[in-house]
């Protein structure tokens, strides 16, 4: 029998929040809500990692705590370095109500980023481009592609800044890239706004070419499958990446290797 899905009860203090936080998305590891920050006039994103009932409670707390702290450390480091990511406003990794029977989850309150995710922006553009390119001449096609090329360059520059600050994202997709703008509406094809990287749930601190190249590779593959018409411009992203990062040449050389073998390193030596 189908029952209506009910998200888990909110932990304190958000059980008191008026109006209650609104559930936006749910992943395997966390629920994302929209709520207000510590200033009632300013919205905030609230990421809650619930405890996992199938894990041993002590191990569960340890893992949840470790992961949320790692995520927050990466974001806070990036904020300090001036990289465009949501700032951490408050957090709590202690759980509630003791080891046994208590709540072993953790939460992270972040700056709210207003604007669309790049996935949606590219989907809109691709749908429009597909429908109209038949009627366009070469010059019109070039003009239509220009904003997408420019966007990919800006994304490349944003990833360069991220890597330069010593952080790798671990899950770069067009759903984890946003355009900060207050003027975007659903029907808009505009590709404006500052690129903001979000969701550092799998991020770590690393300056290795291998890790950086895998970041680029994962995004390239993600684009290939979700945005086939934009993927040919991936080269532009690498141009933007190279402009923003001195070490880019060795990273891009490594990317060639990763492309040949895939994301996982061979275990055969």
């Amino acid at each position, binding site marked *: 029998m189908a029952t209506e899905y009910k998200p888990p009860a909110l932990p304190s203090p958000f059980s008191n929040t008026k109006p209650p936080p609104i559930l936006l998305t749910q992943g395997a590891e966390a629920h994302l809500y929209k709520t207000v920050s510590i200033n009632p006039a300013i919205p905030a994103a609230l990421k809650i990692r619930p405890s996992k009932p199938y894990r041993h409670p002590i191990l569960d707390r340890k893992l949840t705590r470790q992961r949320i702290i790692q995520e*927050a450390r990466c974001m806070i480091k990036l904020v300090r370095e001036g990289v465009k990511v949501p700032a951490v406003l408050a957090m709590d990794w202690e759980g509630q109500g003791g080891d046994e029977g208590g709540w072993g989850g953790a939460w992270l309150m972040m700056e709210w980023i207003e604007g669309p995710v790049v996935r949606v922006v590219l989907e809109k553009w691709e749908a429009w481009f597909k429908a109209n390119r038949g009627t366009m001449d070469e010059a019109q096609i070039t003009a239509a592609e220009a904003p997408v090329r420019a966007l990919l360059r800006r994304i490349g520059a944003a990833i360069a800044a991220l890597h330069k600050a010593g952080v790798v994202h671990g899950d770069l997709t067009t759903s984890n890239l946003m355009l900060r703008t207050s003027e975007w509406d659903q029907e808009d094809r505009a590709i404006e706004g500052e690129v903001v990287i979000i969701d550092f749930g799998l991020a770590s601190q690393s300056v290795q070419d291998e890790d950086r190249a895998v970041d680029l590779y994962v995004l390239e593959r993600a684009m290939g499958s979700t945005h086939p018409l934009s993927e040919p411009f991936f080269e532009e992203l690498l141009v933007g990446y190279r402009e923003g990062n001195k070490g880019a040449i060795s990273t891009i050389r490594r990317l060639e290797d990763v492309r040949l073998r895939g994301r996982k390193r061979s275990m055969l030596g």
Partner: protein
Amino acid sequence: MTPQLETINIPHLPNAPVHVALYRNVENSASLRQQLLAGNADFEYALIDASMVLSRQHAIAAIFRAVNDYSNNRLKSHNVHSEIVISFSPATNITESFRKFGITDSTKDLLVVKVSVSSEITHDSVAAHLESSVVATSVPFDDQSLSEISDITKIKKAYKLGALPSPGTKIDRAQTKAPTDDDVKRRLELSILGAIALRGS
């Protein structure tokens, strides 16, 4: 003169209204500190050296962390008010937190915070007690007042953010994409908020 005591209802913490007053030219810092050290319950306040406070948001973030820890029964100190002073600090050392962020005998600018943890603590009761206890000029608790009080160099040092640009310094406007003073201050503020949130991790 009745002090300008602001009562703030911090979102997510509806059961703990917070009363905040900002003072300049405080004349009796030494005696206020003495009351605190003597453990006089009437003087149970968070008394913060206001030169260590960058902005309203900075102060509220520290208060939020302390009140949340209080309501989850995990205070590192005697009460929620001493915890607020500790919450300003990015480090876990309690003595050092008080030395850096708490009132000293020579404090001239003072931020006073009182949380309504019981029903006897009201705006009026706090306002009346402060009026009779603090010898100073009351100013509004806002970013305008704080910008005249905060010691950016000292704040950056306490949060180990020396590498960040300081608001109020001259920026080469000819340089393209130079950040505005607001951008610079915002980056510093958000870096501080991160440090407060991560304390003890």
